[in-house]
């Protein structure tokens, strides 16, 4: 196991965010975290790389409690891709990726040619080599997301934590980001833990799923086994159907929310009004 969390609890003051979260990430595995807004997905990620301290429970990296590890070690082993990333000054993609090398560069040093090579390599791995000197702020949403992933990869981490990497992206760009993550995990043995609002991604691209829910205990396991219409429905507090969209691949399932049941009444009223 590269990362394991046992019985994690977190609360902001008196407000509990999540409790009793236990899961593991093996090398090369992709784990998706799903749950409603406010279920504590982003907070959980920040507990895993030491940005926040959980109220109870342990996070272990290679068997070692992360509170005992140096910040630099964490920074080199775990790459973090936040949800919104803005850049005030308009750094280039390469300059941005170089910053991911911070844990490898001494406090009074400048990036070495070796650091620059690692940053260029990271940019190549996400397929942005043609944009390497472009201004980060002029990239499209999908390219910016890939650039931030490149920045996390530049440190050569063994685990990547991503906070909703596919949010605000069109379906093609979502596929592009997921493709990059899959190839990193399959070819380089990189472990990936990401939060998402698309349960479909958990079915299609994940080895494990972690479902966080305020009302019920968290569920962790293989998506095909633990993600049923009942459990997913409970997580989102809404009836859902789970449908296989391609008979050749049993994992190609999609979650169809019962929109009509949830907003049906109002929709009918609108239609009546229009008539």
């Amino acid at each position, binding site marked *: 196991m590269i990362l394991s969390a046992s019985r994690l609890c977190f609360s902001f003051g008196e407000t509990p965010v999540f409790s009793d979260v236990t899961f593991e990430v093996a090398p090369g595995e992709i784990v998706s975290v799903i749950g409603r807004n406010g279920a504590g997905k982003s907070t959980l990620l920040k507990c895993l790389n030491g940005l926040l301290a959980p109220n109870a429970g342990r996070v272990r990296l290679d068997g070692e409690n992360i509170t005992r590890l140096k910040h630099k070690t964490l*920074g080199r082993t775990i790459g973090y891709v936040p949800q919104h990333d803005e*850049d005030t*000054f*308009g*750094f280039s993609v390469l300059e941005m990726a170089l*910053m991911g090398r911070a844990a490898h560069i001494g406090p009074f040093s400048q990036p070495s040619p070796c650091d620059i090579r690692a940053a260029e390599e990271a940019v190549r791995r996400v397929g942005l080599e043609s944009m390497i000197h472009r*201004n980060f702020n002029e990239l499209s949403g999908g390219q910016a997301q890939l650039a931030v992933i490149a920045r996390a990869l530049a440190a050569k981490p063994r685990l990547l934590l991503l906070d909703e990497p596919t949010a605000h992206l069109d379906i093609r760009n979502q596929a592009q980001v997921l493709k990059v993550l899959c190839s990193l995990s399959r070819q380089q043995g990189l472990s990936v833990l990401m939060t998402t609002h698309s349960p479909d991604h958990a079915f299609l691209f994940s080895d494990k799923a972690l479902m966080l829910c305020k009302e019920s205990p968290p569920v962790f396991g293989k998506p095909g086994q633990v993600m049923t219409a009942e459990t997913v429905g409970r997580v989102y507090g809404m009836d859902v159907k789970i449908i296989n969209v391609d008979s050749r691949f049993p994992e190609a399932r999609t979650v169809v929310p019962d929109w009509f049941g949830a907003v049906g009444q109002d929709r009918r009223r609108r239609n009546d009004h229009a008539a």
Partner: protein
Amino acid sequence: MQPNRAFRLVLWGLPVLLLGVSLCVGRYRLPLGDMLSVFGLVSGEVKDVAKTVLLNIRLPRSLAALLVGAGLSISGAAFQGLFRNPLVGPSILGVAQGAGFGSALGLLLGVSMLSVNLLAFTFGIAAVFCACFIARRRGGKSLLMLVLAGIVMGAVFTALISLIKYTADPEDKLPTIVYWLMGGLSGVGYRDLAFAAPIIGLGSFALLALRWRINVLSLGEEMARSFGENTKLLRFVVIGAATIVTAACVSVAGIVGWVGLLVPHIARMLFGPDHSSLLPASLSIGACYLLCIDGVARTATSAEIPLSILTALLGAPFFAWLLGKTGGRWT
């Protein structure tokens, strides 16, 4: 963009060249030959007056212009990176107002010039220390808190400066204080330089050493921490270094506005946002800018023009032009 070798040569050569030029200009006419022979570069007889003008008046003054311009600019650039905001200047945490109060107090009490320097320096640091003390709290929007606390300290010390002006003798002390606060290098001697130069040098050196790290800080606290950065320590060192530099600048030159805001922008337009090149570029451009401004200040009219008036009158329209040209984008 990494400045290439030719650019680097210009960056370090230009301030030296301008230092030479500024030694030649002034109301006392001094031929180039005389100047060179004072420095022993050419043999020849020189009048004692020429020697005094050059060595005791122009040289310390020009060196001070160079140091103050460089110091204010590099601390401005560092603060813009730290606060992730291209609109802040070196006095965002109240250091200039604090130092201004210190020197006004010293002038009111009629203490020696060195004591005025020391008072200015001490109160400049005290203002920033108070701002940091007010802003200290766990997590949250700590940068915003820091800026607000800086505005608070700036307001307090501005009021205290007014109080001193109000109580000062209007015949004698008040004009000195007012004139001093407008910024100027007219009375600068080697004693001031001996006080300020080591401090400005030390602070600038620390900022230059950490220049790449300021990039990482400019991504925001959370991101920097995820890279394993000790953001608290780093921020403390950057604020401390920029503060001592600015306090030392104000203690010799008074409050010289605009330089620390304007110069980092020019540097950013020329060399891009990477602080690895931005900080050295700001240092050099700032030195050149203030050497030119000071040259104008002492030659344009028969009386000396306070520096702040010129930095704003020449700097503000230039800044407006820059804004128009770049459309407010800082890249």
